[in-house]
């Protein structure tokens, strides 16, 4: 069963720049989809069009039977609460506590009054505690978000998205400001969460190696158009050139792999501090 279906989705900004051009694909339940492509290819726009943080110009977005592109006002907010989102720079509300950040995942469900008084239902609260335990932050719930490290903040971001009980996860460059080891931990955490809940996810990611390692399927975007759609193993040098343009891919992979492994212990040490 396909949970999400994009049909000829297009976005042209007011400046005249075409960010997306007739993008169509489907995502079945439980699939972790990696979205790769050069900067400015429209990855971020695509993700934001799905939950309508950016208004698409044309096309339809069908999530579980409703066309999200047509929704307005309260109906749009009800649709957004079904879609969890994880952000590039964590985008936690820094001056709120970790717990408030996680509970803010319930905002689409609770009344203004309850959210204002921070009076969430017992189910919401115990779910938040259980999610914090899953992401390994059970001790930190009363800390302010800006007191956490980068990796910890992204874990809170994951917990916030899962607190929504989403039907779909949108992930925007989750590892952009993290070190290699933490990046892998975060990707693993997202992958596990999706498999456990049979949750589809679209992960917009720069790092091709990470994408290959942690996703079930890859879509390559170039100048707003899908230029590759297939399994991670299908990312040959020829495909990468099609997506990113000319580059010595074999050597780059070798270098990256070589440079990555010995670095890990040092990173471990740094995290210990």
């Amino acid at each position, binding site marked *: 069963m396909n949970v999400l279906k994009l049909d000829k989705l297009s976005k042209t900004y007011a400046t005249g720049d075409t960010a997306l051009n007739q993008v169509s694909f489907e995502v079945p339940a439980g699939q972790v989809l990696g979205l790769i492509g050069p900067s400015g290819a429209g990855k971020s726009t695509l993700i934001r069009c799905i*939950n309508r*943080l950016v208004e698409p110009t044309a096309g339809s977005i069908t999530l579980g039977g409703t066309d999200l592109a047509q929704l307005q006002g*309260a109906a749009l*907010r*009800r*649709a*957004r*609460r*079904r*879609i969890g*989102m994880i*952000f*590039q*720079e964590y*985008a*936690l*509300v*820094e*001056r*709120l506590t970790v717990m*408030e950040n996680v509970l*803010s*995942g*319930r*905002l*689409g*469900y609770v009344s*203004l009054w309850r*959210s*204002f008084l921070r009076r969430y239902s017992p189910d919401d609260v115990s779910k938040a505690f259980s999610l914090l335990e899953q992401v390994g932050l059970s001790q930190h719930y009363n800390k302010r978000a800006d007191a956490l490290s980068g990796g910890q903040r992204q874990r809170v*971001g994951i917990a*916030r998205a899962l607190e*929504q009980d989403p039907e779909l996860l*949108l992930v925007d460059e989750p590892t952009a400001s993290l070190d290699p080891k933490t990046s892998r931990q975060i990707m693993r955490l997202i992958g596990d969460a999706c498999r456990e809940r049979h949750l589809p996810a679209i992960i917009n990611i720069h790092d091709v190696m990470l994408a290959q390692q942690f996703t079930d399927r890859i879509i390559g975007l170039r100048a707003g158009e899908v230029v590759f759609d297939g399994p991670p193993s299908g990312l040959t040098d020829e495909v990468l050139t099609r997506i990113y343009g000319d580059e010595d891919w074999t050597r780059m992979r070798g270098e990256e792999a070589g440079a990555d492994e010995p670095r890990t212990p040092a990173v471990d040490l740094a995290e210990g501090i």
Partner: protein
Amino acid sequence: MTTNAPTPVWHYRTRKQTLLGWLGWFSLVALTVFCWQLMNENTIWAFVSDAPEQAADIGGRMFPPAWSYIDQLWEPLWDTINIATLGTLIGVAVAVPVAFLAANNTTPSRRFVRPLALLLIVTSRSINSLIWALLLVAVIGPGLLAGVIAIGLRSIGFIAKLLYEAIEEIDFNQVEAVRATGASGAQVIDYAIVPQILPAFWGISVFRWDINIRESTILGLVGAGGLGIQLSASLATLAWNQVAMIFVVILGTVIVSEWVSARVRQAVI
């Protein structure tokens, strides 16, 4: 290598910049001199040259201050503090919604609502609290109420201006993240915007309270209550030693309020 190329001469500025600079300075000086002469057309210089004697005379009468006069100053002092505090509270209560209407990123309509809010802010800011008090005393009669409202009206513009600038500087990613959870507009304000501007809000409010203490010491000059009433009475009878005592009380109050406001601002940052 070229050996006969002329050594480049380094100039601090280009000729045109230098000329423009001098022209700017010259017009500033000319304007100042012109204003000075216009202003002093009616100045009686005999009074001005007489000033040191006058100052010595007043200084002599001020000293020693009438220490016992303090007994009559406690109540006006209490009134002064109340005018400042209640006025600040009124100002805050009105300024917060106005700031949200005026900020570029939270205003419901950039075309209609925002200009109105900005006009309200500039009106309130342009008119000193003493003028507001002058008007209000004429309208609702002398007393503390006029003072409280005058301080409140003046504070609206000050607080709203600084607050809407703070709102415009917030990190928009946090707003986007909260919106993505399906939160309503009011919830976005509560969860994403308010936490970001809260330190600025406390800082601004306490800062304004500190200023208001100073301003409310003089509102009594036009009949709006507080120490100013005593001051104007003492001035009318030329009781300079009482005036000196009032100055001592004002100085003390201002120092204490400045200390309080500095402490609070330290605590919230």
